[in-house]
């Protein structure tokens, strides 16, 4: 697979000799130290697929378009054409989808499947490296158990891609990873090819609750307060700026390479624009502080997560250009979730900001379409008119953008990955279910078909093996 290297390390370096004299040709072979940006590369390759023509469905293209009685053609694992009428190519597998709906696969940009898998026994708690408030050096993919039965349940809910994030205990929780929802023996076999890395950060109550032990007394833990949270981020960014300066200087001038620091590698990746920041943040006022901080250090927050109060600053989020990844109606389980309202998602959308429906939950991920439906209808009752077709952006296009994979997936446009769901009916109805789920054109799930229903290793030989789930 493709390896990425820091651009600054791409040239060879001439090292000066001890004597300080002119170099000679023998030193040309000494190359600059390179940091491998992709040492755990994806090994995923699309599974075999047939040329597939889905006929006469209600098609939501995921970018605001709806075609009644439309056709979708999948060729070589890509969306080939979406139109009112497409002639079947020779040998195509033609699916009569009259009365059914076709959408892009749902992308959940906030999941802990694999790092907090089922069963949730103590040995499976691999999602929070609680040992320090700043653990930008850890990577979620190193904690993922690919045998989590939650993956196939999510597949049955139409999830074709998802971001697995570290938890929100830490100020910097570590790197997230974007996966294709295909069963695999390895995490590498699920990794979305060429998806950028992400960084999980967290605002508010969680870091200060987890680390502020000792009741604020010496020698207690930090951060103890929201002030401490922000100081903790800023100290880390300040170090990262210095680290980046060293590497930039090394790239420019040569000399001894800087000492590697895995924590700062990740933060430098953010400052270089290679790693996307996803930040857990509930309160409106905190999100605005974070936006200012990102300007202070020269990076961008791609998406605020949970964002229970985004509706209070939807205008500012639109101006800044951050997405909000939200629940439809979760609220009240802690103080910073107390002002949750049912219209958060449509109010963010109405302001022209990027709205995303996310799950953060192994049950919720199975019905994100219903969560979008609830938000959509509550918005309409509050006078916010959004079409079903536009609302589907919350489930595929916008999360794809937030993960840096929208050029590959997230909508039914020619040339994109054929990540497609056929629903038994209107996916905004509680009674509709995903019937067929295609990933890169390959039929990976079919409801009621035992041969197209993954069963994880953990489920073999247990009660309910192979049952309808």
């Amino acid at each position, binding site marked *: 697979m493709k390896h990425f290297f820091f651009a600054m390390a791409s040239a060879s370096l001439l090292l000066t000799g001890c004597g300080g004299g002119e170099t000679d040709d023998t030193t040309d072979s000494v190359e600059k130290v390179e940091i491998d940006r992709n040492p755990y590369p994806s090994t995923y390759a699309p599974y075999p697929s047939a040329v597939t023509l889905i006929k006469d469905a209600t098609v939501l293209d995921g970018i605001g378009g709806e075609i009644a009685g439309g056709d979708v053609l999948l060729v070589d694992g890509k969306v080939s054409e979406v139109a009112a009428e497409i002639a079947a190519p020779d040998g195509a597998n033609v699916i009569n989808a009259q009365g059914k709906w076709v959408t892009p696969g749902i992308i959940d940009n906030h999941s802990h499947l694999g790092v907090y898998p*089922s*069963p*949730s*026994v103590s040995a499976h708690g691999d999602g929070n490296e609680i040992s320090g408030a700043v653990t930008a050096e850890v990577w979620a993919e190193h904690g993922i158990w690919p045998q989590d*039965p*939650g993956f196939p*349940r999510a597949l049955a809910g139409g999830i074709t891609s998802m971001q697995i994030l570290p938890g929100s205990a830490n100020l910097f929780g570590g790197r997230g990873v974007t996966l294709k929802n295909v069963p695999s023996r390895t995490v590498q076999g699920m990794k979305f090819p060429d998806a950028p890395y992400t960084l999980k950060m967290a605002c508010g*109550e969680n870091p200060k609750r987890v680390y502020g032990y000792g009741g604020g007394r010496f020698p207690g833990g930090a951060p103890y307060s929201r002030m401490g949270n922000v100081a903790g981020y800023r100290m880390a960014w300040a170090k990262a700026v210095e680290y980046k300066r060293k590497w930039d200087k090394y790239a420019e001038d040569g000399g001894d390479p800087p000492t590697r620091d895995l924590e700062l590698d990740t933060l430098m990746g953010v400052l270089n624009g290679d790693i996307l920041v996803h930040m857990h943040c509930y309160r409106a006022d905190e999100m605005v502080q974070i936006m200012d901080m990102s300007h202070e250090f020269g990076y961008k927050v791609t998406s605020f997560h949970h964002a229970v109060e985004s*509706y*209070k*600053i*939807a*205008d500012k989020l639109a101006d800044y250009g951050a997405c909000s990844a939200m629940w439809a*109606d*979760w*609220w*009240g*389980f*802690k*103080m910073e979730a*107390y*002002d*949750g*309202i*049912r*219209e958060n998602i449509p*109010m963010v959308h109405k*302001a022209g900001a990027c709205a995303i429906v996310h799950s953060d939950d*192994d*049950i919720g991920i*199975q*019905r994100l379409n*219903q969560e979008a*439906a*609830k938000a*959509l*209808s*509550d918005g309409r*009752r*509050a*006078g916010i008119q959004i079409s079903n077709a536009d609302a589907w952006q919350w489930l595929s296009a916008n999360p794809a953008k937030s993960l840096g994979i929208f050029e590959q997936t997230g909508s039914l446009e020619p040339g994109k990955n054929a990540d497609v769901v056929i629903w038994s009916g209107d996916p*905004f*109805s*509680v*009674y*509709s*279910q995903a019937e067929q789920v295609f990933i890169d054109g390959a039929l990976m799930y079919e409801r009621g078909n035992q041969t197209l229903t993954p069963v994880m290793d*953990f*489920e073999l030989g*247990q*009660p*309910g093996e192979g*049952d*309808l*789930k």
Partner: protein
Amino acid sequence: MIRTLLLSTTAAVGLALSAAAQDVAIVNAKIWTGTDAGTLENATVYMSDGTIQGMGVNYAPPSGTRLIDAGGNWVTPGIIAPFSRVGTVEVGAEDSTNDTNASGSAFSVALRAADGFNPAATTVAITRVEGVTQIAVAPANGGSMIAGQGFTADTSGAPDSISNERAFVYVDLGEGGAGLAGGSRPAAWAALRGAFADARGYPARFMAHNEGDTLTRADAQAFGPAVRGQQLILVAAHRASDLRQVIELKAENLNLNLAIVGADEGWMVADELAAARIPVIVDPFSNLPASFAQLGATSRNAERLIEAGVPTAFAHLSNSGHQSRLVLQSAGNAVANGVSFDDAMAAITVVPANIFGMGVSGTIERGGVADLVVWDGDPLEVMTAPTAVFIEGIEQSLVTRQTKLRDRYLDLDETDQPLAYKR
């Protein structure tokens, strides 16, 4: 002056209750009755004095009655959330606002969740506006596998909204209870048997000292009605073998009034549950092996239990303090997974009303309590919402703290004044 001020403040926040039951008739309604009458199209239901005093397709209410035109839409009984913590917690993570459990208490059965109920809690109104008019509220397990006694209430927010302060005793006999009892299922069952003996032996075995095998004096006294079958015992358990133990408990104590909540592997013992006439409260969302007690969890659990004849109610068990309102979505998903619409509706109305012996029947019928909801569509659909909610014939406010927050921020323009002045 103070009185006037208070009244106007109450009106302004919009959380006030209507003064009294009005005579109201809902006309042009599609009424799901929950009785043998089935669903009535183009029907009328007439409420007076808090009860339903007339209904039917050709029924005409007394002249002069206030009419609400349902426009052909659904009217159902008020929905029941059969496993909730609404009104006993305001902010889950803030202990000072959370009365659901008491890990530091020396008591168990004697703990009454009703003592912590606040009808003015925001959760009450926020639950009500989703069409949920009745709740069964369980204590949570703190220090004991026997969490205490749960209650039933309506969601009117009125001071007298509790219908039964001591509706049931709640006992965890799954993994959680095992842990609290000392670390194993045998420890939990030994403790339960001890508790039964303490309650049956009360007060005699407490003459000489204050503690029984398992219970304190106050707990043993409080457990009396339950062990004599005069009070429901609600047992939390999932694993098929745990459920069989509960069935056996009933077989050995035929007078016990038992129900089970959870029961993810209930489908594996459905016939036995039906034969023992033990009702269950299941979460239709639960389909993951979340623990080793839930390996057989499947979204078809409800369908199979109902098929076997087990009285089955539905609950949304996750975040029961704030989200038990989602029971309608749970029921809709159960329909998508094989349960009939009528059985799903019964699972959130008639069946839980019967399990808890609530003051309501979960039906719409002449003479019944006028708890009902007018909807703007199919009540189990996620895009549907109530347009009117009646509890004991009183039309309820659909304003909540959440709708007020929404209304404040719908327009973010604060050119002339900060938004804090807007309400």
